[in-house]
């Protein structure tokens, strides 16, 4: 197979990985000392990059805040009874009618923005993780089956995957949401459909290289069953590049979900993610009430950039071409 950036249409996020070589299967790093496990060695290398380490702490901090939101926020932003229109569209630092300070201001219905952001983060992270994981499972299975079985199955699966990769994910998600209607399941289905192809491409590239190695021939000679070879022998060896893609795709899912919600095609109003909070504040921006949109946006971007920085470091670590 020639280099993917030359022969296959590679879309947005794929370009970067293909050009930088993640589609090339990474060999697990060999450790010199037997006492050092690969995981520990990887962690030691990861720690050396301070930016990535900081980004990882930020990711964990945001997840912790989002999980703890019901206990640490001053207000349940979706309990209509606790909202007061007297407090609507107040700037950051305003002391509301309930007697506590709205550090990030309030939105058009008088919600405390800090509380709304933490609740929104919960939904955004949840959607990103679910879409990423389902996409990972479906895409990896398809890619590995294509690489292992070869022949017509390979041609059909990879043709569809390549065709889809040349089609922008956001457009596909947009179309699916339009066709399927709104709701959590529909949105996850749309996100998965838009993203599984990246996993399939990566798993296929890595697995078809593994397929030709001696240990697979040995396992076939035993003979072991197909599914056992695929899942017990090949899968562990294609995991590193998949971890890289998964990191990036979770960030992409969060971003895509926010975009869809911003366009009004995401979750229903009862489950406002960060994208919807930003959209709700958009109309007030022209009159200078920037905080309703800006603060949820900052939360979103800090999360996405932090995940991407972690992903960049993981990718560099797994890329044999950048090894010293």
């Amino acid at each position, binding site marked *: 197979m020639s280099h993917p950036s030359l022969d296959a249409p590679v879309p947005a996020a794929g370009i970067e990985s293909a050009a930088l070589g993640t589609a090339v299967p990474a060999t697990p790093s060999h450790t010199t000392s037997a006492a050092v496990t690969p995981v520990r060695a990887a962690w030691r290398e990861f720690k050396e990059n301070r930016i990535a380490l900081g980004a990882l702490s930020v990711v964990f901090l945001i997840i912790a805040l989002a999980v703890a939101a019901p206990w640490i926020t001053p207000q349940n932003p979706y309990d209509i009874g606790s909202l007061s229109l007297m407090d609507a569209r107040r700037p950051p630092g305003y002391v509301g009618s309930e007697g506590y300070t709205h550090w990030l201001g309030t939105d058009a219905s008088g919600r405390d923005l800090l509380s709304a952001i933490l609740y929104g983060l919960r939904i955004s992270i949840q959607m990103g993780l679910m879409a990423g994981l389902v996409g990972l499972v479906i895409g990896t299975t398809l890619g590995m089956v294509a690489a292992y079985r070869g022949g017509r199955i390979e041609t059909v699966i990879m043709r569809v995957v390549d065709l889809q990769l040349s089609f922008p994910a956001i457009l596909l998600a947009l179309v699916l949401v339009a066709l399927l209607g709104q709701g959590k399941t529909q949105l996850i289905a749309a996100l998965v459909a838009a993203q599984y192809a990246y996993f399939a491409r990566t798993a296929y590239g890595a697995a078809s290289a593994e397929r030709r190695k001696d240990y697979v021939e040995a396992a076939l000679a035993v003979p072991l069953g197909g599914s056992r070879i695929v899942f017990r022998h090949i899968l562990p060896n294609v995991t590193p590049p998949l971890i890289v893609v998964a990191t990036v795709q979770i960030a992409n899912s969060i971003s895509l979900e926010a975009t869809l919600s911003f366009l009004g095609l995401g979750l229903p109003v009862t489950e406002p993610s960060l994208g919807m909070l930003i959209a709700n504040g958009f109309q007030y921006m022209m009159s200078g009430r920037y905080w309703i949109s*800006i603060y949820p946006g900052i939360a979103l971007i800090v999360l996405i950039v932090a995940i991407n920085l972690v992903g960049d470091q993981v990718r560099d670590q797994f890329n044999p071409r950048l090894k010293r």
Partner: protein
Amino acid sequence: MLGFIIQRLLQAALVMLAMSALVFVGVYAIGNPIDVIISPDATQDVRAQAIARYGLDRPIWEQYFIFLGNLLRGDLGRSFLFGMPVLDLILSRLPATLELALIAVLAATLVGVPLGIYSGYRPESPISKAIMAVSILGFSVPTFWIGLILILTFAVWLGWLPAGSRGPTRELFGIQWSFLTLEGWTYLALPALNLSLFKFAMMVRLARAGTREIMLGDTVKFARATGLSDGSILRRHVLKLISIPIVTVFGLEFGSTLAFAVVTETIFSWPGVGKLIIDAINSLDRPVMVAYLVLVAALFVTINVLVDLVYALLDPRLRPGAKA
């Protein structure tokens, strides 16, 4: 070469046929086709007429052929919202989108490729690190958020540029364009910048990765041995060698720019196809959705074919019959 072109065109026709079947199944078979084609407030007569015209009382395979026939004649139905044939509607909005997308992709390439080559040539210099930081942001930060920040900064706070809509246009070849007047450019600037940032980030990464690899190769060694300066090596050899992936991306990105234009046009109220499709989805104007899907699919297939042909021109090894 002629056989190659014919083969590619046949493949493209097959893909289009498959896409039309998918669109048909998606919109006609999943949803209720009567609701899709006939406006809910139509009278009984209009209803019966339309059912007969689209053959909704016939078996499903026959309906598909009628759909195909209408498609080939360019009859994609009438928009509920605008009451005009959707093909005319979309074609009337297309110039605005094309203008925006072309300016965005051109700007991204003309600025991004030189900067990418520079940062691949001097990866450790502070300027390169700054370029890469901007490109990471361009990749990570969702397009809609960058749009909001641009509006907030340049329209609300500084008041330099208009925040939305297309402004005055001038006619050329019977079509209205913005780029012909200075005032038109003030309306174009922000949306074009918004749309180009992601492409810019991609061009920088692509050019950088390519340059880094080529600078280590024999081409550059020999070119240096002949006494060429680094500047002319970059211009004459490196630029040429990285041009293949860049041409691909340019082609494919021009297509995906249409997808991102959906977001940009919504934020800046730019009256292009992207805004039209969002309005159509929000108002359940299904004929417009169907037509948009078919046209976008056709566009992508065309771009893929063109990119393949340009490849064959640029790289003789990719021509069939000339196996490397």
